[in-house]
């Protein structure tokens, strides 16, 4: 039996543009912009003032609450401004710390360390992960320390390292696994020691044979390698758990309810860097790709680097129609080049005019393709019709809140209906109503 999940779609693969390109370091830029809200949860609070001098790796904003993580200076320099700047996810202006680089790129005193993370102790490791600013790097940016602190009654028995990377363009996890397999594996071991597990699974898409070969060679016996069929959204948490363990995450519940925990391969590497070297999350690997970029590259980029600097480093853009933060299925289209790379930016994809459809949509022809392909087994056709009429209360009966917004329905719709857009519209209406009138 082939290991897979119900629904999903085979996308036209464009990963080849960057999948064989070695990761290169992005050179130092003059300006870095760090929004205080880069994770799911409460925005953090700046602890520096305009004019302060900061060093690379120094904390510049502290967590404001439990579901919140710190932010650090990506390089040494001066705080130029603390004010509203365009946020790449919302498109609105949001409080950000602007750092003017001094060109020296000097570490804060004491960093990097060299220590044995397995002698630190569980609680200290979890606190350290929060203060190192680590979030899920697959794009969801959920604070990692929260996932590593399951309540007592929820016993985690399966840890899954997610190296599936199922979107059609980006290859940042792919390159990370090829070039730094030991960081991913060691990070996984740190998570296992925190949770007290003696085994885990690492899942990799079969379209990355080189990554599979390298991980197979390096992986210790307690970590099981699972190459998976290439299908979107195989990398989505619930679908991945279903594929590997056969367990259904209950509707409205979390993977930890069924004893599972999924961490992205990039997150594991970030945990290893923080645990072994004390390096906070100040840079990440990002695929800059798409037919609209002159030289597609995988770059190691400092958080806060502006999009225009990244584009310049990659040779500029040609015939661009859309610039996306993230892959084409879930990425956010940018309208300005002054937005910064943030913790969740797994890819920057430039689509050309020929790749972007601007035709309008027509009535639903009830072909049922969205129903067949929906990985959550919803009825997107009905949700889109309700979305057109803003009928969110009725949409709740059609499992509106179970949608994971993977975008398969919109992708597959022959009438070109923006189904996911309608669903998000309904979800926004539901949220607004709930915040106004309570539950």
């Amino acid at each position, binding site marked *: 039996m082939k290991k897979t999940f*119900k629904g999903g*779609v085979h*996308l*036209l693969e464009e990963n080849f543009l960057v999948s064989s390109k070695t990761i290169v370091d992005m050179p130092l830029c003059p300006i870095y912009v760090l929004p205080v809200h880069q994770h799911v949860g409460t925005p953090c609070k700046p602890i520096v003032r305009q004019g302060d001098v900061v060093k690379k790796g120094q904390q510049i904003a502290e967590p404001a609450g439990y579901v919140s993580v710190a932010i650090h200076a990506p390089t040494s320099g001066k705080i130029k401004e603390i004010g509203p700047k365009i946020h790449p996810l919302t*498109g609105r202006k949001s409080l950000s710390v602007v750092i003017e680089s001094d060109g020296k790129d000097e570490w804060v005193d004491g960093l990097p360390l060299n220590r044995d993370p397995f002698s630190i102790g569980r609680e200290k490791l979890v606190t350290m992960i929060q203060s190192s600013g680590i979030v899920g790097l697959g794009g969801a940016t959920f604070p990692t320390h929260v996932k590593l602190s399951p309540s007592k009654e929820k016993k985690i028995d399966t840890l899954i390292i997610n190296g599936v990377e199922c979107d*059609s363009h980006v290859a940042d996890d792919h390159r990370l696994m090829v070039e730094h397999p030991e960081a991913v594996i060691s990070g996984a071991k740190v998570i296992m020691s925190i949770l007290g597990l003696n085994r885990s699974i690492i899942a990799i898409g079969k379209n990355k044979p080189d990554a599979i070969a390298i991980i197979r060679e390096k992986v210790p016996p307690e970590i099981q390698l699972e190459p998976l069929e290439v299908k979107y959204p195989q990398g989505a948490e*619930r679908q991945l758990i*279903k594929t590997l363990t056969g367990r*259904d*995450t*209950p*509707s409205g519940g979390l993977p930890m309810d069924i004893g599972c925990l999924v961490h992205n391969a990039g997150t594991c590497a970030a945990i290893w860097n923080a645990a072994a070297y004390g390096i906070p999350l100040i840079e990440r690997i990002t695929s800059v790709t798409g037919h609209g970029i002159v030289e597609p590259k995988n770059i190691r980029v400092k958080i806060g680097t502006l999009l225009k600097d990244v584009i310049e480093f990659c040779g500029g853009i040609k015939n*661009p*129609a*859309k*610039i*996306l933060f993230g892959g*084409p*299925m*879930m*990425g*956010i*289209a*940018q*309208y*300005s*080049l002054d937005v910064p790379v943030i913790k969740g930016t797994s890819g920057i994809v430039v*689509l050309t005019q020929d*790749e*972007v459809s*601007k035709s309008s949509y*027509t*009535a*639903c*022809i*009830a072909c*049922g393709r969205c*129903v*067949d392909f*929906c*990985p*959550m*087994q*919803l*009825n997107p*056709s009905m949700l889109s019709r309700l979305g057109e009429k803003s009928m969110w209360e009725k949409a709740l009966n*059609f499992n509106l809140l*179970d949608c994971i917004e993977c*975008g398969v329905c*919109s*992708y*597959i*719709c*022959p*009438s*070109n209906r*923006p189904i*996911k*857009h309608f669903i*998000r519209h309904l979800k926004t209406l539901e949220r607004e109503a709930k915040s106004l009138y309570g539950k």
Partner: protein
Amino acid sequence: MENKLTVSSSPHIHTPEDIPWIMRQVIYALIPGALIGVYFFGIPAIKVILLSVFMCLGVEALTQKLIGKPITIRDGSAAVTGLLLAMNMPSGSAWWLVMLGACIAIILGKQVYGGLGNNPFNPALVARVFLLIAFPVQMTTWPQPRVFPLSLADTTTGATPLGSLKTAIFTYGKIGDSGNIALMDPFLGNIGGSLGEISALALIVGGIYLIMKKIISWHIPVVYVATVFVLTCLFWIINPGMYASPFLHITCGGLMLGAFFMATDMVTSPITNRGKIIFAAGCGIITVVIRLWGGYPEGVSFAILIMNGLVPLINRYTQPIKFGGVK
């Protein structure tokens, strides 16, 4: 530069399999059946097909222009309706009959509801049933098949196998010899009937193509044909003197055309596979009831239209069970 960037909600890529692509595949799948019709019925069949297709396209464009809607004949749905209508009519149909049918299909069957996607009933079947009731003689005058060079000359007319059965039942109270036909004839198409329904083989080939292209699923055709087979088989075993063999029932008449191309119309069939099974079983039962005990020799068109009317209800009770939901 920045003013030229497009901003929209994700996903930002889209499948090339849009409505025109789907309609093209349906037309490709109908070609074998249509060609068999042309082979056995000759030039008149070509005339009916061309007239019906172009009339449907013209009427759709004209209606949309009159009501001030964008003209969408390029999506190919009107061409599919035209081809299906032609294949559901006798090959010797007069020009006015075909044109009237096209007007009914597009205007009454489709545009009055708001166009493609909003019509509750299959447009081609609405037209066919209208014509059958309004012009029963013209709609049941079946030219007999002749091999190609001969089919260019004037043809004789005769009854269809299902028509002969009904006549025998009404006249003698039993089917007698009328059920004894060589089943290879309806399988290959050497038989009287509507232009595009005569060859079960050609229609099955087209249907399998659609299933392979994932445009239709197997549920409706398989369940529909199986229901007809099982029910007719039951009655044939009970009383072979009154009821014809199940093999005759599944090869003759409009069953294959209906099961693969009419009942599977996306707009007018249920959205989930469970719904499709219920829908197809209903089509099968109604078809058998009409064929065995009704006043008409054939019941496929009526059965599909009746079940079309029940689709919203079927959809309501066959919602998909969500991931992680209660099984």
